[in-house]
């Protein structure tokens, strides 16, 4: 029974080539294709092949290698032989195993891998051509990493290896595969997802992604799934799928529909709506159609759960609502005074008896740099409150912004100056409304 399951698994698409070799050997022994003597012969050949590969790997420099290296080399041999046997089919594979030497099978396998590498390069170029113009770090990093894969992939010794980082999550993850097979399958699925998403306006996709995940740029999310989900939902409601926008009323309608249908009906309708999407978008390719249908039917498990809660908000995400824009203030710093003029002004202000005169004189200063000099040199502790009360909110906000910028880059031990302590106290003592206004302005101050 267990063996039958294994055969089914082998005939399935995603059987790892590494395991395929041992599986064909096991299958052949169980079915009497290989005798115990043949098995001994295969193991002996495998050992010799590993020895030869180790020799090639060390280029004759070393007769021994760490056990980890030997394991990797063996895994690569098994992978290459397995990939060839997998292409031949299980019965023919078993016959080949009996009639051909392992070195021949290995050489055939390496040729298959080389062909797959060529295919992979073509797939990568198509994936790059169809890539979405959406700012998601993992998506673009992964495409870049796959380019490095083709530079770093050493199929002669480590054919089973994937020497790159694959961060971007596909809608359907790839189980079991490794080496170039994994990369090719990954790229094929990515191209399907890319081509589907390219039928929609990229700014609409961006809005949808913002609604789906606020930090969509940095998070490891799949961009295809929310697009397909919303398009499926809109297709179910006979609405314009290209808008991608499922609003609250649509969600209620969808909830009612799914409550009305039995599970079988719901599944059938999801698949039908995926087919409808394919015909609207003129998707003819069978693998793409199957991919879309499988994704749409995969929604069923989530629908089953969410139907109970009566909330489809997380299933069919809405568009991101634009936040109220923070007003932007551009502060144009005036020209600084010459050193001599500034010195004269400071001396004059320091000799001044009346605070009101000082406040009037400070209006001669047009640059924040000079103003700071004056604040440091010309005012005493008790004069600051009156001085600051003569400033309007914008001026206070500019000074506060300067203060925050300075202390965010300065060392922790950098002490606060007299005027800095006083302005913070002054703002704290203002009424809540003015404080809020100043804080609001602070977010939007830009020095020019």
């Amino acid at each position, binding site marked *: 029974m267990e063996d039958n399951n294994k055969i089914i698994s082998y005939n399935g698409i995603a059987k790892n080539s590494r395991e395929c070799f041992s599986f064909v050997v096991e299958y052949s022994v169980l079915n009497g294709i290989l005798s115990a003597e043949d098995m*001994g012969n295969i193991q002996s050949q495998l050992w010799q092949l590993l020895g030869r590969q180790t020799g090639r790997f060390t280029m004759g420099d*070393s*007769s*021994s*290698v760490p*056990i980890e290296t*030997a394991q990797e080399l063996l895994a690569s041999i098994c992978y290459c032989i397995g990939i060839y046997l997998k292409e031949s089919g299980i019965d023919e594979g078993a016959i080949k195993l009996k009639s051909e030497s392992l070195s021949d099978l290995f050489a055939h396998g390496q040729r298959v891998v080389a062909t797959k590498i060529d295919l992979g390069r073509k797939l990568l170029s198509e994936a790059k051509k169809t890539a979405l113009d959406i700012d998601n770090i993992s998506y673009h990093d992964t495409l870049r990493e796959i380019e490095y894969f083709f530079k770093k992939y050493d199929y002669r010794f480590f054919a089973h290896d994937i020497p790159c980082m694959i961060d971007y999550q596909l809608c359907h993850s790839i189980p079991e595969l490794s080496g170039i097979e994994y990369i090719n399958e990954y790229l094929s699925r990515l191209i399907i997802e890319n081509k589907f998403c390219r039928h929609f306006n990229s700014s609409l996709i961006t809005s949808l992604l913002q609604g789906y995940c606020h930090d969509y740029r940095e998070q490891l999310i799949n961009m295809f799934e929310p697009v397909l989900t919303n398009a499926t939902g809109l297709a179910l409601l006979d609405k314009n799928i290209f808008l991608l926008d499922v609003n609250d009323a649509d969600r209620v309608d969808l909830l009612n529909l799914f409550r009305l249908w039995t599970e079988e009906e719901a599944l059938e309708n999801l698949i039908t709506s995926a087919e409808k999407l394919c015909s609207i978008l003129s998707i003819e390719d069978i693998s793409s159609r199957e991919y879309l249908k499988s994704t749409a039917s995969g929604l069923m498990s989530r629908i089953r759960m969410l139907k109970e809660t009566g909330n489809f908000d997380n299933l069919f995400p809405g568009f991101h609502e634009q936040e109220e824009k923070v007003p932007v203030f551009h502060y144009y710093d005036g020209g600084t005074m010459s050193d001599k003029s500034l010195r004269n002004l400071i001396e004059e202000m320091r000799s001044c008896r009346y605070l009101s005169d000082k406040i009037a004189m400070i209006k001669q200063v047009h640059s924040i740099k000079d103003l700071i000099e004056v604040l440091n040199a010309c005012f005493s502790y008790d004069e600051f409150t009156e001085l600051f009360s003569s400033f309007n909110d914008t001026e206070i906000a500019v000074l506060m912004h300067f203060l925050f910028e300075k202390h965010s880059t300065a060392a922790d031990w950098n002490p606060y100056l007299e005027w800095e302590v006083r302005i913070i106290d002054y703002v704290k003592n203002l009424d809540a409304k003015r404080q809020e206004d100043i804080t609001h302005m602070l977010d939007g101050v830009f020095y020019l």
Partner: protein
Amino acid sequence: MKDRFSLTLIDMQKIQTADELRNCNELTLRYGLSLTEQQIHNIVEKRFEALRDTGRMEFDRGILKKLIYEFCDSPYISQDNYEDTILELQDSFYYFKNESMELISDDELISFMKQHFDTVCQGSLEYLSGTSLEELCRNTRYGYRVDDKDVYGRPF
């Protein structure tokens, strides 16, 4: 069956190595050195132990023949200490092969061992493994070549 077969492979390697050591006696006899059957058996057994202890796999005939050919003319090896020296050298070889992070080839390492064994180490295996080989591996990890010299112009 798998275990039985694995044993057979190891046995084959053992037989091959033992044959090689027997053949080595023809050369080493010129230097007054030879290995008895028991000693050959011990050395072959210890080879697999050393490989297991250092976590390495060896194919073909291994390095015993090379070690014996290189060291048989050493003035510090006599018939009395021949077996022990070869056993010790074999252990050191695999240990330092690991320590050098595969950056030194078999031939380079054996030749370095011989050169130092006959000169600075004056036949002391402790000195060889405790200082010379340690330094060699450390320097190799720092990126020096085996035949590089230190700041005083002395070879490593």
